[in-house]
């Protein structure tokens, strides 16, 4: 335990009183798509998470989901699984929702509304509502406040964020080949993740020679839209001790923390600053640990740049030194603090952040789903050999940080600990 853990002046709201006890997901699909509804995908993912926890549907009495009105609401999924709900809520939003909903789950359990909450995100983000904004989403009517952005061809996530990325390069001298290393490293991790959609390892040259989408973003700086559903189960830590897996405790949560002028954050402060600048003052004191204590990060990689900007503003390196941090090997499996060991949204598949939480839960269980051989107890015997096709379990990992991203002006975060 860190010194701050026994420092009574450090806030630790509900730290370690709640746990993520179950995780589950469908495959990550492109090509012909999932061929199934978001109801079917969501039902499968929630069911998988319940079974993973060692619970039954009757044990679940709360449900939370998030979507961009491109999914199925919680009562449908609950109905499919015979779950009677004491609480549910379906919220609007994409990235930065998972951690925020974990915080809401803790709050509603603490307030006595329910006891065990399933959180899911289900989307046909490739075959139905393209997350990148192409297809039907690209041609929506342009009304009112949207005249200040969409009418200028300023609509997709990449287009919206690019001025912050560009300004970071200008102010700090950040180089394209440094940022490209985010994709390179995540592709190495994905090569050891049997369920990743893009398992092929790529080079800096591959990234920089891929076509431009919106400068400074090449095609390979952008994540991969997929059809999928993911789910996690949150309940009290004392309950977690009787369940199937080694408990993974929640130490602190930041939920949709915003910069000023969330309506148009470019009007306030440095535009290369992201919400983590504010979120870190909630995340670390409540966790009772600091970035130096963290063994593994899940820094949201909608784009290579988003990983870098969040790691900077949450304090994993000095502001402006993100280019060096993401390219010096720190984030690689076998490095000091691996990031997105699943391959993340750039390589595993795009899930609006929830799969990055699932990955860190499995890391903290010391039970990552790589290709290492199964032992007699049904668990993988990890080799810690991170060569292509090998292991991706981090040895003796104790503390994780997830850094969720909605946009430069809004983010969420969570610290989890192995019990």
């Amino acid at each position, binding site marked *: 335990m860190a010194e701050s853990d026994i420092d009574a002046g450090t806030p630790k709201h509900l730290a370690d009183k709640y746990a993520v006890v179950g995780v589950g997901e469908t495959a990550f699909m492109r090509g012909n798509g999932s061929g199934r509804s978001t109801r079917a995908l969501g039902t499968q993912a929630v069911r998988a998470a319940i079974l993973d926890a060692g619970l039954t549907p009757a044990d679940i009495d709360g449900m939370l989901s998030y979507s961009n009105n491109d999914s199925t609401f919680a009562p449908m999924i609950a109905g499919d699984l015979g779950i009677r709900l004491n609480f549910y809520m379906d919220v609007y939003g994409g990235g930065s929702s998972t951690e925020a909903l974990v915080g809401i789950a803790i709050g509603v359990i603490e307030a006595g509304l329910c006891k065990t909450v399933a959180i899911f995100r289900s989307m046909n983000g490739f075959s139905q509502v393209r997350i*990148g*904004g*192409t297809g039907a989403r*690209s*041609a929506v*009517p*342009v*009304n*009112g*406040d949207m*005249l*200040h*952005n*969409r*009418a*200028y*061809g*300023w*609509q*997709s996530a990449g*287009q919206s964020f*690019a*001025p*912050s990325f*560009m*300004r970071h*390069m*200008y102010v700090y001298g950040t*180089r*394209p080949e440094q940022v490209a290393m985010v994709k390179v490293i995540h592709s190495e991790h994905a090569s050891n993740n049997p369920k990743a959609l893009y398992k092929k390892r790529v080079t800096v040259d591959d990234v920089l020679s891929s*076509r*431009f*989408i*919106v*400068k*400074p973003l090449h095609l390979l700086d952008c994540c991969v839209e997929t059809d999928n559903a993911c789910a996690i189960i949150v309940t009290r830590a004392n309950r977690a001790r009787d369940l199937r897996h080694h408990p993974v405790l929640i130490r602190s949560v930041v939920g949709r923390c915003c910069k*000023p*002028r969330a*309506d*148009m954050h*470019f*009007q*306030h*402060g*440095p*535009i290369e600053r992201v919400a983590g600048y504010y979120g870190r003052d909630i995340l670390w004191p409540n966790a009772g640990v600091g970035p130096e204590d963290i063994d593994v990060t899940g820094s949201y990689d909608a784009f290579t740049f988003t990983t870098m900007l969040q790691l900077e503003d949450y304090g994993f390196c000095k502001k402006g030194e993100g280019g060096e941090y993401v390219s010096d090997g720190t984030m690689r499996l076998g490095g000091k603090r691996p990031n997105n060991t699943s391959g993340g949204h750039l390589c595993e598949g795009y899930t609006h952040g929830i799969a990055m939480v699932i990955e860190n839960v499995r890391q903290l269980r010391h039970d990552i789903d790589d290709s290492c051989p199964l032992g007699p107890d049904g668990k993988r015997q990890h080799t810690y050999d991170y060569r292509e096709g090998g292991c991706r379990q981090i040895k003796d990992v104790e503390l994780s940080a997830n850094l969720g991203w909605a946009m430069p002006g809004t983010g969420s975060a969570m610290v989890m600990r192995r019990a």
Partner: protein
Amino acid sequence: MALQGDYLGMALTVDELDIENVAYFGYCAKHDFHLQACDSCKLLRYPPTTACPWCAALDSHWVAVEGKGAVHSYAEVHHAIQPAFKGHTPYLILLVDLDTQNGAPTPDEALRVAGNLCTPDGQLAPPEMVAKVGIGTRLRMVFSDVANGLSMPQWTIDETVAQPAPWRYPD
């Protein structure tokens, strides 16, 4: 009265209840650039809002603002998402620091006004013009006429001043 028009094949609408945007685009239609000035703290703000983001006062008045400034940052779109822009790549999305109120209320702020790089007559800029513009480029405001009563503020290179060497993404 609601504002409506067709721009590059996109239907643009400002509802009549959206009184701040109706007023803003009303000035733009006359090729005037006006912003709200807070009656209480006197600060200008962009884009139009109901209350003052700096002091939360509700009352404001519209003042003429000079449409001049320098590029704070930009995005250069090569793969257009919206059908309207498919035939216009590469195009620039600009955030322009207005000279007016630059560095206020703190040194980190400016009125950062969005727009595309355009020709002086408000058409999206051709590739050779796009290649000249980067962070620091001095710009002046022009307008793209959408319909009777609806125009959009845009930006073009200010040919009347000496241009600093712009910073552009390293090619």
